[in-house]
Every structure is written in C-alpha cells, then in structure tokens.
C-alpha cells in the first residue's frame, strides 16, 4: 500500500515531466480566462478589455462596457475565479500531504476530520445559534469562523488521540480519524433532528459546497492560508519523499518524523479548515488531483506539489464555471459537480492502472 503505485519514471515520462509544469501553467491561464470570460451575464472580450483599460486609468479606451458589467466582472466573477484557484490548490496540495503522511493513496484531508469538524460546527451555527447572532454586522463571518474552529478542533482531537507515546502513529491516527468522523456524523444527525425545515435546507446546501460567497476579503484570507500550506509543503518536499520509504527509514535518514507529522496535520487543518469554512465541502478534489498528477510526473514531491496546485486550481475553476453557467441564472452545487466528475474519472484511472499491472 505505498504511494508509489504509479508507473516508475521511465524515459517518456521523464521527457513529459520537463514540459508538464509549463503545460499546467498554460492550462491554469486558460482556466482563468475561461472562468472570467463565461458567466450568466454576457461580457464580450472587448468589454473585458475596456473594463481592464478603465481599471488601469486608460479611460479613453474604456467605452465598450456598461458599469454593471464592470461590477459583475470585478466584484463577483474575478474574486470567484481567484477563490477557485486558491481553494483548488489548497485542497489538492493538502491531499498530497495527507497521502504522504498516511503513505496511502486513499488518504485525503477528510480523513483527519477537517470536513467533519467544519460540518458539525456549521450545523451548530445554523441550527442552534439564535438568528440575531448570524444577522448582525459581522453575521456573515459567524458561520465561516465557526466552521474553521470546528475543523481545527476536531483535527487536533484526532491528532491527540492518534498519538502513541508522543509520536503520531499512523495507524492510530487513521483509526482515530475514522471514529471521529463517525462521531461528527452522529452529532450532525442530532442537529438535523432538532433543525427546522429552513435550517435543514441551509445545512444541506452548505455541505454541498459553493464558491458563491467569494469576496475580495475572503480571497485575501484564503490567500494567506493557501500560501502557508504551499510554503510548508515546498520547504519539506524532500522529507515527504523520505517518508514514503517508511517512517523508520525516514527517521534514520534524519527526518524529524514526529514533528513533521504533527506539523503536516496542523498545517492541513488550518489551510483546509479555512477553505471549507468559506466554501463548504467540495468533494474529491483532494483525492483525485494528486493521483492524476502522480500519473503525470511520478511520486517525487518536488514535481508533485507545484503540479497538484496548478492542476487542482485549474480544475476547480473549470468546475465552478460549469456550476454557475449550466443552469443559469440558478447555480449547481459545486461539491456535487466535482464529485460527479471526479469519481468516474477516478474509476477510469483505477481500471487503467490495473491493466498496466
């Protein structure tokens, strides 16, 4: 059960690897262009250029759009595309981290209880807090703050229970995660029981995921969280490679395994907790994207981390563009769409991997 389930880097893969980062960057630019270009409100390329001209002070060229298009592009669509990029990158790289931590391709941030904790806390906010709390001046921040704290708290509990004599033990961590996820599920069930009809629907929609709450403030918050994760992941990329050899071997090769594992859980909890807090649960990205990228560039984290960030961000932008245009003026739940697309893709990958073996 090691992560090295992908084909070993042979020559075609090595030559492919040289170009993947460039290709992925182009793919990402394409995603941003498509994401900002398409939406319920038609904004032609000339109108977009005109809005850009206006934003940088070239007013004489800014005559091809009306003000409402500028507002939609700058205040609604653009923050949403950037949020998609950040959340996609965050979930994917967190997936890479978890798969390295558990040395298991099935691992995803969900396993340590991040999503479960966030969902439970969101349930408490929606079903138990009085309306005055959530409708005040800072009302819009109560739910994200609660969800973030829930994600963090539950992950910390998982980490604490998963310890064995000061060292996180992967099997205990895994089992603790399973049990704690079951517990948060049961807690959520209780909340569903006491919630009224409207609360129930709010809760359901929250758990289906959406980038609809994207504002520049949210984007800024998530930029910090995602940067933290990417910085941590990049700095420790070599240690992650060594972890794949086994914790014992990694330890003997000088990796501070216990500290590293603890930090992996903490950083994932903070980053994914922030993402989930604003977007709800967006399924399957953290599981599928690292897999896909591993097929492209092999298991070395130096290549895997940047590629996962780029591919995850791009795919989420594409998925969100679909979510907000397919049934416009309404919106499909993003988490449903990512899982709907991700799961069959994952199955195809599995079937093909078996054929190669």
């Amino acid at each position, binding site marked *: 059960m090691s992560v090295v389930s992908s084909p070993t880097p042979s020559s075609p893969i090595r030559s492919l690897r040289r170009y993947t980062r460039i290709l992925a960057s182009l793919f990402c630019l394409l995603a941003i262009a498509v994401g900002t270009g398409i*939406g319920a409100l038609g904004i032609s390329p000339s109108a977009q250029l005109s809005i850009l001209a206006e934003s940088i002070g070239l007013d004489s060229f800014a005559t091809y759009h009306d003000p409402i298009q500028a507002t939609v592009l700058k205040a609604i669509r653009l923050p949403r595309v950037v949020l998609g990029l950040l959340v996609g990158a965050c979930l994917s790289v967190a997936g890479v981290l978890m798969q390295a931590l558990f040395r298991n391709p099935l691992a995803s941030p969900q396993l340590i209880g991040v999503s479960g904790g966030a969902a439970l806390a969101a349930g408490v906010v929606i079903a138990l807090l009085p309306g005055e709390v959530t409708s005040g001046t800072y009302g819009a921040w109560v739910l994200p703050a609660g969800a973030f704290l829930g994600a963090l708290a539950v992950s910390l509990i998982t980490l604490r229970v998963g310890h064995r004599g000061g060292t996180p033990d992967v099997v205990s961590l895994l089992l603790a995660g399973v049990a704690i996820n079951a517990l948060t599920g049961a807690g959520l069930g209780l909340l569903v029981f006491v919630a009224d009809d409207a609360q129930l629907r709010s809760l359901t929609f929250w758990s289906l995921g959406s980038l609809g709450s994207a504002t520049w403030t949210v984007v800024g918050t998530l930029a910090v969280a995602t940067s933290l994760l990417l910085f941590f992941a990049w700095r420790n990329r070599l240690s992650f490679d060594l972890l794949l050899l086994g914790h014992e071997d990694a330890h003997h090769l000088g990796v501070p395994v216990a500290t590293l594992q603890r930090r992996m859980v903490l950083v994932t909890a903070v980053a994914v907790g922030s993402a989930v807090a604003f977007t709800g649960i967006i399924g399957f990205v953290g599981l599928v994207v690292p897999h896909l990228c591993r097929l492209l560039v092999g298991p070395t984290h130096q290549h895997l981390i940047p590629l996962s960030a780029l591919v995850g961000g791009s795919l989420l932008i594409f998925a969100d563009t679909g979510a907000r245009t397919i049934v416009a*003026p309404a*919106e499909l739940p993003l988490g449903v769409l990512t899982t709907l697309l991700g799961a069959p893709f994952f199955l195809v990958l599995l079937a093909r991997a078996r054929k190669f073996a």
Partner: protein
Amino acid sequence: MRTSPSFPRDLVHALIAITLAAAPPVFAGTIIDQRNRDITVESAEKIVTLGAATTETVIALGLGDRIVAADASSKGITGAESKSTLGYHRQVAAEGIIATGTDLVLATEAAGPPAALQQIESAGIPLVVLEQATTADATLKRIELLGTLLDAQEKSNTIVAAIRSDLDKAAKLRPDTPMRVLFLYARGGGAGQMAGDDTIADAMITLAGGTNAFAGTKGYTALTPEAVLTAKPDVVLLTTGGLASMGGETGVWSTPGLAQLPRESVRLITMDDHLLLGFGPRTGLAALELAQKLQPSSPESGGPDEQ
C-alpha cells in the same frame, strides 16, 4: 461625410418622448424595509422576487408581467411557473440575478447567502428585504409596503380590505368549542411531522377558529403513534401535496397512530399547499375556507378542495 438631415433624428426623439409619456408615470416609492433601510425605487420594470408570498403578492397587485425571475419556491404559484428559474432562495447566485437585467430585487429575511445579496446591492440594484410573514398583521403590512413601493396603492388597499373582511367572517364562524386540529406536514415517504406552536400551520389554524391539537411543543415534531392519540384531534389537516405524498386517504388512515383514531368522529381536511401555508395575498381566503371546513355541520372530508 455629409451631415445627414436632422429631420429623422428629431422624429425619433419625438417618438421616444411620446412613448415615455404614454408609459406608466415615473414614480418614486419610498419605504423602510425589514433592515430599517430607507429604500426609494424609481423604476420597477423588471422585478426579481425571492419567496413565494412575495411573488404571489406582486402578481396580486397586477404587476405579474414585470417579474423577470423568481425563486424555486414560487413554482407552484399561478402566473410564476415559467419564471421560477433562480433556484433555492437561500442560495441564490448574484451574477445570475444581475444577468436577468432586473432593476428591483424583492427578498425576504430568509434570502441569502449574505455575500450574494451584498454583491447585488453593490451592482446598484435596489434590494428590499421584507418580513417573512407568519401572522395576518405581517401579511397585511407586507402587502401595503409593496403597494407603496410599486405605486399600486389602490390595488393593495383593495386586497388588504378583502383580507380583513374575510378574516372577520372567519372569526365569526368560530364555534363555541373550537375544533382540535392536528396539522401534518408530509413530504414523500415517512409519516410526516406534526405542527406545534410557532408554526405557520398553527397560525392559520388559529385564524380559522380552531385550536392546535399539538400545542405545547415548539416547531415541528416527527409523528409518533402515541403523540397522535394523546393529541386527540377532531380534524387531521393536510395540504393537497401532503395527502398525495402519504398515498391519499387510504395511506393516511393506515399510518400507525392515525389508524387508531376513531374514524367516525375524526375528519380529514385538505387544502392547497400555497393557500394554506403561503401567508400571501390569499391569507383571508385561506382562513375563511379553513373556518368553513372546520364547521361542525360541514360535510365529511370538508367538501371539495379549491386550487
């Protein structure tokens, strides 16, 4: 290039002026909405409504053709079927709403998410938040507010007067010993939920001169056989949709708990979903119809259902 003769352009301008003069007069309705904000509306030609009661009220004010889009809960309202395109009103998409070209969004406190509402306002589209009415007074207030806002006071006064008179009639029908009414909220599978205090059904039962058989518990509670028997209802009240989801009358009377009620003295009454639970412009009609159905002399099963 030769300057074109100004005659056609003048003609166009004149035509525009005539058209504008013939169009509904420009008005400026000012109201204070549920968030205590002063809102002035100068034109409301393309209205977006979020919430069934709001949609129904705008249609009742005779302005249904100005609605460009409504939320999913408005689907069942006559005149809004094809306009219900915006999805669930707690999870609307800002860009989708702006793309309808609307110049006025009428929402309730339930509408969301907050970020989307903020974005709609930042695009310069006036957003009115109305009370999520669950009492007759709140309903009347909402109709008056919308009448003022949309320059349809005459029509709103007529509706308000009609509701008041129907509510009076309903109150007069109140029997000396009010009927004990058990409202069942049923939606596919399962046995449904019983309406307790602080529910829309409870409010409507009271307006119609009945007493809620399941009073004493707040909100909705899942139906249990013992609770039904303890409630000792004279009447089991369902919406038409609820009855269908329970498998018709046969289904209702074979549900554990309901099956044990004395069939000879307990009646089953159904009413249209939106009429009974909407608290829209037909609130008076709904109370009166329910009051009539609750009359002791009323025929079995409460007579024909109105749609």
